[in-house]
């Protein structure tokens, strides 16, 4: 279980990186800012940072509309 943007989300895989999480929301090629347990994760680390049960994740993606 993860807390993602304020909601509990089931993350079925036993393992998975931030990159996997972004891919599951079709955000892997988008400009995003990811925070894990109050720490902003640099995009060069998305491939290596593994998610843990009860992680609190915030994902902000940028859009251009107005």
């Amino acid at each position: 279980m993860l807390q993602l943007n304020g909601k509990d989300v089931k993350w079925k895989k036993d393992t998975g990186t931030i990159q996997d999480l972004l891919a599951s929301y079709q955000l892997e090629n988008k400009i995003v800012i990811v925070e894990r347990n109050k720490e902003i994760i640099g995009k060069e680390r998305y491939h290596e940072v593994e998610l843990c049960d009860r992680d609190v994740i915030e994902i902000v993606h940028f859009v251009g509309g107005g």
Partner: protein
Amino acid sequence: MTGRYSRQELFAPIGPSGQKKLKEARAVIIGAGALGTASAEMLVRAGVGSVKIADRDYVEWSNLQRQQLYTEDDVKKEMPKAAAAERRLRSINSDVDVTGLVMDVTAENIFELIRDASIIVDAADNFETRLIVNDAAVKEGIPFLYGACVGSYGLTFTVVPGSTPCLHCLLDALPIGGATCDTAGIISPAVLQVAVFQVTDALKLLTGEECEPVLRSFDLWKNERSEVRAASLKHDACPSCGTKDFPFLSYENQTKAAVLCGRNTVQIRSSITKEADLEALAGQLRQAGLEVAANPYLISCRSDDMKMVLFRDGRALIHGTNDIARAKSIYHKWIG
């Protein structure tokens, strides 16, 4: 208390002294679409002394669902948004010095537009304009309130030059080909939620309070929200607020637009050198209900009397107009 601003003055953090500060303040709003009309109405009702609002487009039927200053009459008369907004805003509050500017905001004219501004409210519909305004705001030391939305999603961040990260720190690079309100749609609550965050920060800054460097985002439909403390994203090497090279003010980084003589066509050459993902774009445009044709070299699509052809190198031809501002507007609506 029965005065015009009495309820705002009763609100202790503003009070009569804050109201006086608002009267002396000058706000510039970049764009008079959904976000711009929402924040303009709030700032004008709040009694901000001077409000300038700039936009290059005119009012269309598809605007009325969310662009709150416009009427059916404005559509029928094809009123420029800046002119229609100015008229409506003046009728809401004659105390305020309201100026609507029918213009395409560029690196060439941005400094004249923001001269003496106390704050700049972002209500643009594309990243390129935002990064031009961000560079100019950082250079002049004027707070810049980024806000954007699409679908039921939106986000805001308030840039205070010298203190917070700037928009370039957050974005790192100029995004291309994202969803836009013209391809993925937009609901008005998402617009208003963004404007609410922006105007709250505007009122705080204009009355002398500080804003926290928080990047806020939400999806109203999914009931999701997030707040990221963004102070650590300020980069000393940021070309905009760090080394002060202000890349988006330079000629090389401008989208180049030129009228093709005698063809009723405008060519737009994006500043982004990356190749466009034509297949993904074609999918997005089809989803938006446009008629799209494609071959290995280009895609073309049509809407009303306009036709756009987009090449893999990112170049676009907008057929059906000789007006550069109109062509840029269509380009940003469809491509982002």
